[in-house]
Every structure is written in C-alpha cells, then in structure tokens.
C-alpha cells in the first residue's frame, strides 16, 4: 500500500489529480457538515449581485446568496451523485460482467444482448429517457447515471474476466478442484481490482460531467437546492452583468473533472499499464 502511494505521488499527473480530488472531497465533506461561510440559502437582499469581496469571496447571486457557500454545497451535491451512481453502476456491472464471462453460454448471451440494447442509445439520451419516466430530481440523476453506466462497466469487466478465465492459473485452480466461488473471488476479482479502480476513477469524472449537464438542463437537483450545473444555468442571463456567477462554478466543474481524469490516468499507468482504452 505504501509502495503504491509512493508510486502515485511520484507520478506527476497522479500528484496533481490526487491533490485536487482530495481537496474536493474535503470541501464536499465540509459542506455536508454545514461548514460553509454562510447559510447557502440566506438572502442578503442589499448585497445582490455583488462581485467578489472580502465578505463574499466569490460574490453573491441574484438573490444575494453567497456564491462560495452555494458552490461548496454544489460540490457536495455533485460528489454525492457521482459517487453513488458510479458505485451502483460498478456493483451491477461487475456482477453481470463477471458472471457473464464465467458462466458463458445462454447467460452471457442474454446479458450481453441486453447491454447491446442499452448501449444502442446515446448515453445522455438514455439518461433523459429515464428522467422523462421517473421525473427530475437528485435521486433520479443518481439512478439515471448508474443505469447508463452499468452496461459500460459490464463490458469493462467481462473482457478482462474472459481473458483471466483463460489464464493458466485459473486452469491450475480447476485441476486442484477449487470451488467456483474461490476462483471467482481470489483469481478473477483480485486481478480485476486494478482495472476496476482505474475505470471507477474515470467514471467518476464522466459522472460529474453528466450530473452537472443534467442539472444545467434543470433535470437534476431542483431549486432551491444547489448544484454546480444549476448555478451555471442561473448565470446564463446575467453573465454580462455578473461574470463571476459563470466563472466560478464553470471552473469548479472543470477542475473537479480534471482531477479525476488526471488521477485515473495515473492509476492506469501504475496499476494497469497494458490497457489503454479509456471510457472516453
């Protein structure tokens, strides 16, 4: 573990990505714990649309709410969605991909055809369809993103699982008479941890992007809740008057995604040097 950390910190994009992600996680936790400079819903009527100042580092919005506080809450919100959706997708995808690869035949065919159907939709459109059915909201975004991402995880797990299945050490295990559960956990899963870690990190970047996109369209987190995408869409008509409303949330989204992308790249170099295929 310490060896792994040394290598990660020795990797320049790993270092930068790691610091960004860690900072964001701290901010998200602080926001969840209520440690924001102001109450994000408190409206300072007199201070509406004020630029950055000592009192409000990132200025205030059209209701006079503190942008920094709302930004922190937004990051917390985005991370909540990103982590839970990717968690669910990874869990389902791993389960389906692993069993499809191992049991093969009918089950594999069934699972993979289903995934073909899901992957026949452009990702955002599938999420939109999901939201159209269930209705907008934070929880829906989580499920929608998980729903879109699960097929990708299924494919990502099935490929390496199939090649692991054909490896000699799995054959060796079968000659010993090892149980299926032993082979699946110790021989397949243990070797899938590395590619999965990489994939999860990259998926987090993508999920962050999708979440902010959905809330930008008004289909994610609903007002008066705060999310980065929502803050951006609020700024659209005010951008000439109050560019800080555009710049800070925009940079916050970008930097967060950048952090996960950098970290994912570094992890891939360290953990899984052979696979180069990104989830794009």
């Amino acid at each position, binding site marked *: 573990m310490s060896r792994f950390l040394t290598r990660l910190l020795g990797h320049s994009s790993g270092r930068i990505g790691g610091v960004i992600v860690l900072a964001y996680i701290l901010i998200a936790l602080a926001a969840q714990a209520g440690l924001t400079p102001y109450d994000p819903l408190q409206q300072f009527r007199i201070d509406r649309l004020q630029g950055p100042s000592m009192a409000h580092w990132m200025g205030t919005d059209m209701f006079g709410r503190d942008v920094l506080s709302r930004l922190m809450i937004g990051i917390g919100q985005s991370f909540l969605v990103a982590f839970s959706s990717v968690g669910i997708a990874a869990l389902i995808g791993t389960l389906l991909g692993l069993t499809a690869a191992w049991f093969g035949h009918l089950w594999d065919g069934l699972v993979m055809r289903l995934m073909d159907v899901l992957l026949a939709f452009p990702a955002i459109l599938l999420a939109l369809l999901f939201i159209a059915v269930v209705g907008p909201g934070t929880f829906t975004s989580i499920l929608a993103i998980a729903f879109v991402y699960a097929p990708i995880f299924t494919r990502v797990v099935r490929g390496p699982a199939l090649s692991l299945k054909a490896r000699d050490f799995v054959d060796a295990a079968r000659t*010993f008479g090892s149980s299926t559960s032993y082979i699946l956990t*110790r021989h397949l899963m243990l070797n899938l*941890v590395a590619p999965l870690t990489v994939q999860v990190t990259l998926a987090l970047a993508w999920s962050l992007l999708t979440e902010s996109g959905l809330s930008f369209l008004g289909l994610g987190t609903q007002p008066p809740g705060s999310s980065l995408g929502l803050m951006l869409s609020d700024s659209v008509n005010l951008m000439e008057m109050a560019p800080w409303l555009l710049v800070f949330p925009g940079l916050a989204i970008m930097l967060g995604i950048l952090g996960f992308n950098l970290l994912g790249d570094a992890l891939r170099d360290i953990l899984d040097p052979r696979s180069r295929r990104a989830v794009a």
Partner: protein
Amino acid sequence: MSRLLSVRGLTVGFGRGDTAKTVVHGIDFDLSPGETLAIVGESGSGKSVTALSINRLIDDGGGRILGGRMEFTTARGEVVDLVSATDRRMEKIRGSEIGMIFQEPMTSLNPVMTIGRQIEETFRLQQGLGHAAARLEALNALERVRIADAERRLGYYPHQLSGGMLQRVMIAMALAANPRLLIADEPTTALDVSVQAQIMALLAELRRETGTGMIFITHDMGLVAGIADRVMVMNGGRVVEQGTLDDIFDRPQHPYTRHLLQAVPHFSHGRHVRRDVSPGGRALVRPALKVEGLTVRFPATTGLLRRPAGAIHAVEGVGFELMPGETLAIVGESGSGKSTTARALLGLVKASRGSFSLHAGDEIPRRKPIQMVFQNPYASLNPRLDVESLLAEPVLAGGVRPDGDTRKRMMSLLERVGLPSDSLRRYPHEFSGGQRQRLCIARALMVDPSVLVLDEAVSALDVSVQARVLDLLIDLQNDLKLAYLFVSHDMAVVERIAHRIAVLYAGQIVEIGRADAVLSNPRHDYTRRLIAAVPTTDRRRDVFRLQTEAVPSLLRPRGYEPPEAVWAVCGEDHQVLVEQRAMMGEAR
C-alpha cells in the same frame, strides 16, 4: 581477404541518467564475406542487442551505442563506420547492404498490408523500382524462398499464412536486395522443429547461392553446429569465447562454453537416456495411470448459422500405461494433440470417449492423485497471491483448512525444490522464471499426488535453467516414486528425462516404447522425420533436408470413425502404428 564487418569495443546501453544501464560491454568480432558467425547466449546475454546494434535499429528501441567502432565494407568497397554513420546513410544501408530476420514471424509483418506489398517495398526503397517492376521482383523473391503458388500468395495478408511460411516471406524480404550481410535473430525459435529444419535448410541453401555473410543469433548449440563457420559465445553482455566451430565444440576453453555444451540438454539419438528404472519389472506393478481409448473431439461449425460441419479430432484413441516412478514422454509438434491429452486427463477439456484409471499406490493415502505443471510459469501463478496462499490452494480445494501441518509441509517442499525459506510472504513477481516453475512444482506436490503431468514444463525456461529444473524433477521422482507424464516438443529434453516415449501425430499415438529404442531406432515414418529434423551438436555443417509436408487437417466429417488401430511390435516394449492408407490419403 578484406573483412565484411569488423567490430571493436562495441558498447551498448539503455536509458539515460540514473536509470542508464550498460548491457553490452565492449565486444570485438570480425566477419568475412560469405562467412557465418553464430552468436550464442541465453536471455540477457546481450546477443540480440548486439544484433540490433549492427544495423543501428537499437536506436529505435530506446538503446544507445555508447562506444566502439563497426567498420562495414559495402558492395562498392567503401568502408563505413556504422556507429557514426548518419541516419540517412543507415537507411540506405539497411535493406540493401544488411538484411535482417526476426524471431517472431507472426508479429514481424504488417497485418494490414499484403505480403506482396511488403516485399515490393524493399525494391521500391532500395532500387527505386516502379510498381510493376517491383511486383515482378517480389514474385521472384517469393519463388526463391520456395513458396509454391507464389503469384497468388503475393495477395495474401500475414494472418492467412502459417508461421513457417511467414518466416520464408521474411527471408525473401531480407534477401530481396541481395545484401552482403544477413542478420538472423533466433529465426526458428518460435517454430515447430520440422519447420525449423526447413527454414535452416533454406537459409543454408540461399547462403550458398548468394554468398551472403550471416550473423546467426541463437541459444541452441545444435543449430550452431549445423550452420556456423565460427562461433561467439556471450554471457552477461560480454564475449566469453570465440573461435571456429570445431575449436569451440571440440576444445572449449571457457567454463561457460563447456556448461552450454555439456550441462544443457542436447539430442544424441538415445545415447543419453535414463537407465534408472529396470524396464523388466513392468508386469509386476500396478500402473499409476492407465489410459484407454482417450478421444477428444471438438465440434466444428461453418458459415453464418454455425452449422455443424463435423468435428476436430484433436485426440483419437490414445492409450498407455504409466508405472510409478516412471516417466512417459508424449512428444509431437503443435497441433498433434499432446497438450489436449494432458488437459483431458486433468478434466480441463472433456473427453468424448475413453477411460483412464488412477492407482494411488498402497503405502500412503493420496488425496488428489493427479496434478499438473503448466508451460508458462509467468501465467500459471496468480500474480496477486503470495506464495503461502498459492501453496494453500490445492489443500483448500481438497476441503482441508490449512493448519500448522500444512505450513510445515510448505516449508519442507520449498526447501526440497530449492527455494529460500522466507518465500512464503513473497509474491510471484519476486521470483525468476526457473524459481516460479519450482514453485509450481511445489504447489503440485502439496497434495501428495502419484502422477504429475508436466505440460512443456521446462520449455519456457533458459537452457541452463532447464537443465537444473530437469535434475530437480528426476531427484523428486526417485525420492517420491512419482509417475511423470512429460509432454514436450523438445527431443533433447525428452531424452534426458523419459523412460518411455509416445509419439503423437495428428491426434494419434504412432509409436510408443522404451526411450532408447524409439530415439535410436525410430520405426514410424513420422518419428523418423521428426528425429531427422532435430539439430544435434554432432551433425556439423549438416544441411537439413528441405521438405514441405503439411500437417494433415484434423477436421473430419460428421459421424466419421477412424479405422481400428493396428499395432506392429518391433522389439521389446516398442510398438508402431501400422499406416492406414485410407485415412492418410483422405487427410491430404
């Protein structure tokens, strides 16, 4: 006589700064026109780096020539120092003056270009020929390497040809512009032994025809004997000895050369077989493994709807007996069904027919009487498990919780196979290839088997490591009365370890018997050809017979049943399959 190539103080390294590492330390050698120099060494000896340095391809591979001179005399009589020549100059010299062929023909050709275009390229680059002229030359080049139906083959892509064919294409390409020097870097290592013999014969013939000088890189002393005029032995990036073929073979000076010649397995037509089990006692003991009529068929399908088209008869009616303490070697080339036989015995593939019975012996109750050791020690150990977990797996699989006794057994087995006692907490990547194979052997022995199936178990190892692992296997066999089923393509290795040999061809045993009898007096046509193809250190400058016989297809129509096997006895414990014309005729 003027030199073709004169190398002085060649030093090659990789990397820069802190990670810089020198891998070839100031070597000297000379090559006369038309002469063949063999560079012999094991992996890490620097032999391939030396080869790539001569035409400076090492620059592309991240290496750097750090010092020395390489004076090369071109066809026009100019002397060029290859170390200091410009890149442009080198691009003119490569292909036209120095040709090169590589170890892996399957990956050395561009998969998205037809072989015709790839051969043409040499002519276009080096002689500035136009499309039509280059095509004509390419056709000639293919015919020169004895490829039948050359016209049509020009339009083939690499994946449509076999490894042997591709290596011929590589040779055609390398010799296209009549270079004065041909560098061949382990050109036959990836090929079957009979294909190897064909390629070697071709190289020898072409060398005679063209008068090309050759540098032949190999780890196999047997191949050296067949083709080299002079030999240079490398170890650890240094030349340990060089001289004429006869000097090196008959009067080796350096201990490492002697080690390569003596300790390493070389084929000697059955003169060095084991004689430690008396062949007379066979009838008195119950066999540890008895196999009868083992048959493995895979369904074959064709077309869009995957209609069944028949079956691949991978293994057909294989039967033998294996006594405790005895080694039966199963030899054959790729596609002969030898590995499938092994895998069927372990239940990794389903036998379509046939039976086998294991007899565990009387003294100790055996838990899992048959175990297997795989070819590639890098692939057969899960990289994420430590040695203790690896060794515990067979025990766990048998439903036993590992306890103090298990640990004690681990320690004693590790010691027995010659691994350090602190190995338990370590991971596979911390061990060398030979050590990993020892680990695999220890793992197989954890459950105290009576039969060990060794599937090409030493084939992936360096020759001197091979020798030590073979010695270990023999010791273990004698101590534990283990029965070995030793699957291999390597006759030299088989000669070292086998008591009996079964020759497998197209899924059937064609000859079986005592090792010395089979090796010194092969009776089946195929066995004879196989043995004739094996390079040996006593066949010096011997030109291999050029033969082009394809392995028969194993695909049979639905419902096909092979005729009953008829055996001819040709000596005590030596049987040979009587040729069945009908079947062989159909196969061709």
